[in-house]
């Protein structure tokens, strides 16, 4: 098992931990924060997979995802504020 494989397993563990927080809540704000962490874990996994699978196109996905993820978080914040 290479270091990249080990790192992917650890990223998956962090993703699952944040996913449990999304499931148990208890507020929309908690779910928004956890969704943010899930998103970052996926972006990191994409960067590692581009090195592991030697697919340079995945780096474009990383670049677009970091910009789109910010917009997603801002819209989640709107949702947090609307829901008491």
């Amino acid at each position, binding site marked *: 098992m290479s270091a990249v494989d080990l790192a992917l397993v650890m990223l998956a563990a962090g993703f699952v931990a944040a996913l449990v927080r999304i499931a148990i809540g208890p507020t929309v704000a908690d779910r928004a924060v956890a969704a943010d*962490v899930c998103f970052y874990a996926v972006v990191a996994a994409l960067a590692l997979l581009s090195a592991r699978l030697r697919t340079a196109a995945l780096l474009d996905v990383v670049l677009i995802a970091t910009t789109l993820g910010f917009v997603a*978080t801002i819209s989640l914040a709107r949702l947090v504020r609307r829901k008491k």
Partner: protein
Amino acid sequence: MSVVADLLVVAGAFLMLLAGLGVLRLPDVLARLQAGTKAASLALACVFAGTATLEPSIGAVVKLALAMLFVFATAPVAGHVIGRAAVQAGVPLWKDTWVDVSPLEFTEEQDGGGPG
């Protein structure tokens, strides 16, 4: 070179694991927010630097550096916007969490209905 890349990648993944555990285990939304935002952006920086060391082509390094720049520019803003929205929405906080009252007085009318 390969040892440096492996160390960076594993350190980044470990930080992301810590961020996930922090979001799962910390007592209220503001504590979870600081675990999620700070640890996760440092984790992304480490993972991107490690990936750039693994694949040192010009295109890969430029793309990863740009992505890192985006993350460092947007992650603090995103965390701040969510935290402010949570405090304004009156999310219940942990007993030992102390909140400055000034963001509570910053209501929707004064804010002009912006995206936070």
